[in-house]
């Protein structure tokens, strides 16, 4: 099994870093990062990651808008997206679900289980 490649899109560099560390060190995956929605879209097109972990609240192109753009582009349409957010009220979850994301992972997250959560959502064997 080749290594999974995950793209983390988050404007908070600390969170990008710990999440990257968690996925690289605990799950042993390859991690790409982007610090804005637009950069994320560009990276996704170029790198074609296996999944995208997308922060919802970002300045400029926010999570929802980024997701819609990814969906609109045939080259990125197939990439599964998981929302990564502090907004976890049921209403928010429903809104994201309606958009078509795979699932929502709440912040703060547990670095020890982040990889297994993603794997469970996407049906990947660990």
């Amino acid at each position, binding site marked *: 099994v080749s290594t999974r490649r995950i793209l983390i899109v988050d404007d*908070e560099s*600390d*969170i990008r*870093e*710990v*999440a990257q*560390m*968690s996925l690289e*060190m*605990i799950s042993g995956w390859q991690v790409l990062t982007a610090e804005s929605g637009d950069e994320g879209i560009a990276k996704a097109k170029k790198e074609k990651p296996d999944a995208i972990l997308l922060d919802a*609240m970002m300045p400029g192109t926010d999570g929802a808008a980024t997701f819609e753009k990814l969906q609109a582009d045939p080259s990125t349409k197939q990439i599964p997206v998981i929302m990564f957010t*502090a*907004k976890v*009220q*049921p*209403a928010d979850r429903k809104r994201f679900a309606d958009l078509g994301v795979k699932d929502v992972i709440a*912040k*703060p*997250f*547990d*670095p*020890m289980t*982040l990889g297994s959560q993603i794997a469970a959502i996407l049906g990947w064997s660990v």
Partner: protein
Amino acid sequence: MFAEACALIVLVFCLTVLIGFLAGIPLDIEQLFLRTASKFGSVQIGRMSPITAAGLVLVSASLVISSSARGYRRRQLAAILGLLAASIGFVIILGYLFGAPLLYGSSIIPVALTTAIVLDFLGMGVCASAGPTCWPIRIVIGPSLNAQLLRGFLPLTIAIILLLSWFYIVGVPWIGTPAVTASLALLLALMTVIAIASRVARRVGEEILQTHEALRESEQRLRQITDNMLDIIAQTDLQGICQYASPSYKTVLGYDPEDMLGRSLFELVHPDDLANVIEITLKAIASGSTARFSYRYRHADGHYVWLDSVGNPILDKKGQMVAAVLSTRDITDRKTAEEASSRLAAIVESSDDAIIGKTMDGVITSWNQGAERLYGYSAEEAIGRPISILLPPNRPDELTQILERLKRGERVQDFETKRMRKDGKIIDVSLTASAIKDSTGRTVGASTIARDITERKRMEEELGRLAQFRQTIIDNANVWLDVLDEKANVVIWNKAAEAISGYSREEVVGHGKVWEWLYPDEEYRRHLTDLVADVIQHGRVEEGFETRIRRKDGQTRIISWNERNLLNEHGKAIGSIALGRDITERKQIEVELQLSESKYRSLVENATDLIFLIGEKDEIMSVNPAAARLLGRTVEEILGKSLFDVYPKEIAAMFSENVREVLKTGKSKITDEKVAFGGNEVWINTRLEPLLDDRGVVYAVSGVARNITERKLMEDALRESESRYRTLFDSTNDAIFIHDMGGKFLEVNKVACERLGYSREELLQMTPADIDSPEYAVTVPQRLEELRKVGHSFSEIAQVTRDGIMIPTELSSRIIDYKGTEAVLSVARDITQRKRLEAAVRESEERFRGIAERSVDAIFTMDLETHLTYVSPAMERILGYTPEEIELKPNPMFLSRFRTSLAEQLAKVARGEIADGVQGVMLRKDGSSVHVEINASPILSDGKVVGIQGILRDITERKKIESMKDQFVSMVSHELRTPLTSIRASLGLLASGVTGTLPEKGQRMLEIAVTNTDRLVRLINDILDSERLTTGKTPMEKKECSAARLVTQAADVMKPMAEKAGISLSVESQDASLWADPDRIIQALTNLISNAIKFSQKGGKICVASERKENQMLFRVQDEGRGIPPDKIGMLFERFQQVDSSDARERGGSGLGLSISRSIIEQHNGRIWVESTVGKGSTFFFTLPLLQEALAPLQPEATTGTQRARRVLIIEDDPDLAKILAAMLERHNIQSHIVLTGGKGIALSKQMHPDLIVLDLILPDMDGSIVVEDLRKDNILRSVPLVVYTVRELDEQQRENLRLGETLFFTKSRIPPEQFEEKVVQFMKRIFEDGGSAGVN
């Protein structure tokens, strides 16, 4: 008819012969007639040849057709048939001439030559009779050239042919056999010649025709020109005889042009002009040149017109004049104008008045002899000089003014002014000036006519003085003075005449109409006119005759006249002078004296009272008819009789006694006596008066007697009623006073006495002012005044008792008739009690008002129609409207943005309920909005709602703070979480050792950091949850769920934590369906379990259970922990409350868990509580309603068997929700059909015609509004009731677009399914039951 019948018989007969021959069957018709032929044996019977028959058939057919038919074509056919018959005959003749065998061979049936000749002529005859217009005939006898030639050549040709034939037969050798050919060639040649000849002839004819036509047209044109000329055109010969006259002869001279032909034109010339005309004419004839002359000519109606003629000669080929053309024009107008102007010039020149012409700048252009005489300048001197030489020095502007007026088109008439003569003398002149205009109407100058009026002026002044003198004399006479001319027209009418008659001098002088006004009666007037005429004509003097005049104002006056005539210097009567004196007053006095006697008599005669005069000896001296009538006698019968003769003895004696008393005392006497009269008791009122003679001695008694029985009875009745009234008067609870208009008490009742402490007698000496308290005593006159005006009054006053106690009194007064005089009846009611109550109420109201007025919140009251009846001043502060404005404005309560919901709430209050915490947004006066909260409750009176009272609080500030708090919380949740996320993740990674192992103590520190970070995250989550739940921000997403599954799920979540703490977690669950938000219930359960774990010792047991209890589900979380002290239990569920403050640190709780749990349970209509024993453990309970209960706030309606189940169509894409709605409606005997898409909904609606449609707006295939639009097209479905059940919030416009029949709108978030059921069932009940027959189908 007969001719046709004969022809028909011939036709039939011959046809029979022909048919017999053609068919080969001899018909032997003769056998019918000749039965006895055999007797003659050898006699040969002759037969008709078929050719003869054919000829006869043609002839007879032609006859039938021509005699029966009128049409041209039929007759043509008849002619052709005739010709055919003739041809047959001709051919047979030819056959005989040329030898039959040669022509026909041997088999021919012979026809006799004579028959052929007959046939020939018969055919031609028939042809001719068919009509000369048919072409076969026309060819021969018509007018065309063809026909003429044919007529000329055909007999000759035929004759030649016949001659050739005969030659051939007799055998002339040089002609030989080709005779037939020759005759045919001859015939052909003949035809050709005819054709060519006719063509040539026609062309020549056409040319001739064209020439004729051109000539005619040219003549016509010429005639039209002369006919249409205005001038008269005439042609005469040299003797003046008219040969042509144009139609204008008629218009100008009135003669018909035809009549003029042949007449001499000279005979109508004016005799004076005739010689001149003839002379000019002769000269013109002699020279052959043009002549021109003007002359008068007699018009057809007799008057002469001026004509101007120009005569031109007409010459023949040799240049000899043979006639003349006269062109004549009517010049009467021109002639008349010329004459007039020459006449005018003569007049001007010979006029006595000065006539001066001048230009518009005042230069004199003409100057007549009159001007020379008047002004002294000669024409030579004046013309060319300015007109200003005539102006006196003091009037320089006058001329300009006159010229200005003339320029404006005005005329100056009889303008009196002064002018200066050449010798410097100033003279009075009267000027008349007018503008002189040229032919275009432009003013080119002015003419002035001046007349010397110096002498006239002097005379006028003299006369004026005389007249004034005379007038003064006449006017100052104080008798009516009028002077009339001989026709009775008024000449003089003096001031006295004006005063007496009422007509002014201006009205009457100059005519005689005044007599019609003064004497409107025609007969009376004629009588007077005759009299006056007599005076004037015969010089009679009338003195002292009286007339009645009618004044202008309608009054009648009587005038006494002296009148005599006026004579002129020749002694001829020229009028009359009359002097009149008004004697009306004197006359009136005379007349009144006469009348009074007769009036008095008439009174007595007609009086209904008995009037009589009785003398000293009881004799009746005079009596009126009424008195006589009473006795049943006439006046004559009674007069002179004794009283005792006519009255019953008793009455007579009584009368007699009274009469005697009056005779004796000389004083009048009035008696009321009851007498028996005619079997009845009668009351008689008698008034006796003494009559004195000249010496003052009584000599008789006059009496007036009246039957007063009726009045007496009335008085008795009155007395009785009065006593009854008295009882009433005394027994009423109110004090009653009657006083006269002066204020003196006339009557008081017992209550009045008792209340005031005075006796009746004392009160009757007093006036209202004595018993009213001082401040009211002074208003007594004012009150009396009002009473007089209005008739009644109502006032509140205070009365004072004898002891000085004030009694508030309500006084109702009215004017009554008391014993014949005006009096005031006052009813006084003691209102002490009422006043006290009122004061109490006022005080309480004052208190309330004090509170209300000072309240920060606005306080208001309304009536049941929600019209504001009171608002406190705070309302102005909150809404900006003053209390006064609020009454004028539409009720601002309803300016709320949530008008409808507020109205609903107020309606609830009006029904007696209480509405608390109604929030909404209202509009301030300045248009800004304000958040308000209204608490309203009913105002009760005797248990009935009479109004609404409420408090309106401005919660704008609170709302603002709440909104700020929401923002803050939201911000915190995000801003705190972000760094926490990094911290937590970093710590986690460190603690996991992936970054390298740490020393044991470092590892421990890291674990502490991780635990506390988790706690901080939980705390933040709990604060958010708690906030959202308590403010109701988080709507519960309720659905059907299983109680057992909820318990298991919660236990599964908490199992790791329990295991970690070494605590066993057991589950005991009963199952049932719940109507709940599963996530939230699990949250509540996990909160409770987590608490239990926290407070349990290691090795302890926790039991989570669900259990069905009656109609609800009971959940239980039981632990064996340390328990809760009773004093802490009460505040356990409050926020940030913990049993022990140290717990927060030790147990890692936020202090919000129980508060959140309670909010969740309460929002499910459940209850949460705890039972605990210190040291033994605690059990937390909560209940939730079962699905059936949650959805059944209403009991199903008992339905009657006869009622048809109502059918509802539910169009809803969520199948679960649809099923739940259907299940709810089923319980009310309502049949539901579910469809998940709009398309199916429309189709099924049209098929089943539901009684009601429930519609979701967001449908997979279309929007609900499209469904509505489609259903509106259906006539029945258009009015079906509709319930729109949607997540959308709809504005008014959107709602309007969604209405079908009666339509309700429910928003899913506001109306949960359980309320939906209630509302829909009520809605249907209202429509189908209250609405009576409103059944749909």
